[in-house]
């Protein structure tokens, strides 16, 4: 068992956990942040993507104890405010463009989408629909056929 301290969605959290605890387990079981989904647990599907120190990472393939002092952002951390929460522009875009059906892959899609929009903006590159498809290489959706996910990210890119 190891005590780990990190910042999750802006709040300091800590846990005394077995060393083999995955970040996905720590978030879901210890912190009850169940918005991060586990689709495959083998690093293929991307449903578990969260940001660690600003970078998207598959939380099912990262040990929680290795993240002492890290800043973690999950889907729950995107909205501002409590009861009258304001959705993140990426969440609004998925809603507006029918970018989800069952919604299982959506948290990972949104965390991945936000990163690609930020990165392309910072580098001054054009986030074309081909680029979005390439960036989504590690995110699998079993429902939508991807077209509306791509549209959602394109839409959010104009609003972020």
């Amino acid at each position, binding site marked *: 068992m*190891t005590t780990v301290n990190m910042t999750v969605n802006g709040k300091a959290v800590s846990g005394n956990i*077995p*060393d*083999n605890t*995955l970040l996905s387990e720590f978030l879901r079981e210890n912190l009850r942040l169940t918005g991060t989904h586990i689709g495959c*647990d*083998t*690093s*293929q599907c*991307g449903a578990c*993507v969260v940001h660690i120190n600003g*970078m*998207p*990472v*598959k939380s099912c*393939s*990262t*040990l929680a*104890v*290795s993240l*002492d002092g890290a800043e973690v952002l999950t889907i729950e951390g995107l909205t501002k405010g409590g009861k009258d929460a304001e959705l993140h522009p990426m969440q609004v875009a998925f809603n507006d463009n029918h970018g989800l059906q069952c919604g299982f892959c959506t948290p990972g899609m949104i965390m*991945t989408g936000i*990163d*690609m929009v930020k990165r392309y903006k910072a580098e001054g590159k054009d986030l074309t629909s081909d680029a979005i498809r390439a*960036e989504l*290489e*590690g*995110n699998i959706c079993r429902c939508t056929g991807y077209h509306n996910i791509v549209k959602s990210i394109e839409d959010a890119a104009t609003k972020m």
Partner: protein
Amino acid sequence: MYSTKYHKPASIADATAALTAGEDATILAGGQTLLATMKQHLASPSDLVDIRAIDGLSDISADGNVLTIGAAATHTAVASSAVVRDVCPALADLASGIGDPAVRNVGTIGGSVANNDPAADYPAAMLALGATIVTNTREITADDFFEGLFSTALEDGEIITAVKITAPAKAAYAKFPQPASLFALVGVFVADGAGGVRVAVTGAGEDGVFRQGAMESALGANWSAGALDGVAASQDGLMSDMHGAADYRAHLIAVMAKRAVSAA
């Protein structure tokens, strides 16, 4: 995953101590391969020694035309490094094509080289560029380092600290990805470097990465895609599996080699 004890040493000396003390201690880098192996119970190390906090192990630098990449540098760091882009752009391109963005943010060059997966990308680059693999105890040439499927010249507990590459005059990598795994079904790295023209093939060999001698001779005489016309890759020693038979892989080696030469 079986239980294990996690260590995060700040120096090579501390890492070596932890690796020696543990009954069955293993080096952990990005964990993008190792954690999956542990989940499947194919590995059950008593101790994990995370090398990523070791001072300087993620550094990337160039001294003249010699590029040194720390073992813990992530694929993203290599892909976006201005130094790598300057000295060996083919290597930055290769790194940007490994897996997906989330894997690239965590997976490391040392982990990939140490793992020597027969379909991994970096081994082809190391062999074609005549790279030197630097460990905590010695320097190993790429020719001596890659020994076979998932096997290398590394001793138990030996830590790769960096890889060193001399800038080639020309180099490029062309990969035909296996669409589900994203690894190379066939990948060919061509380089015209200090050690002459070298062509290294990954994804195809039953014993992992290998050099394609006939193509090296043809390109040594005339560096052009056309020089490879009629230089067929042999099917001997190539893998046959559900993703492609040996003759298909042999055909792809020729196609990828030409693409790489044209891009170099």
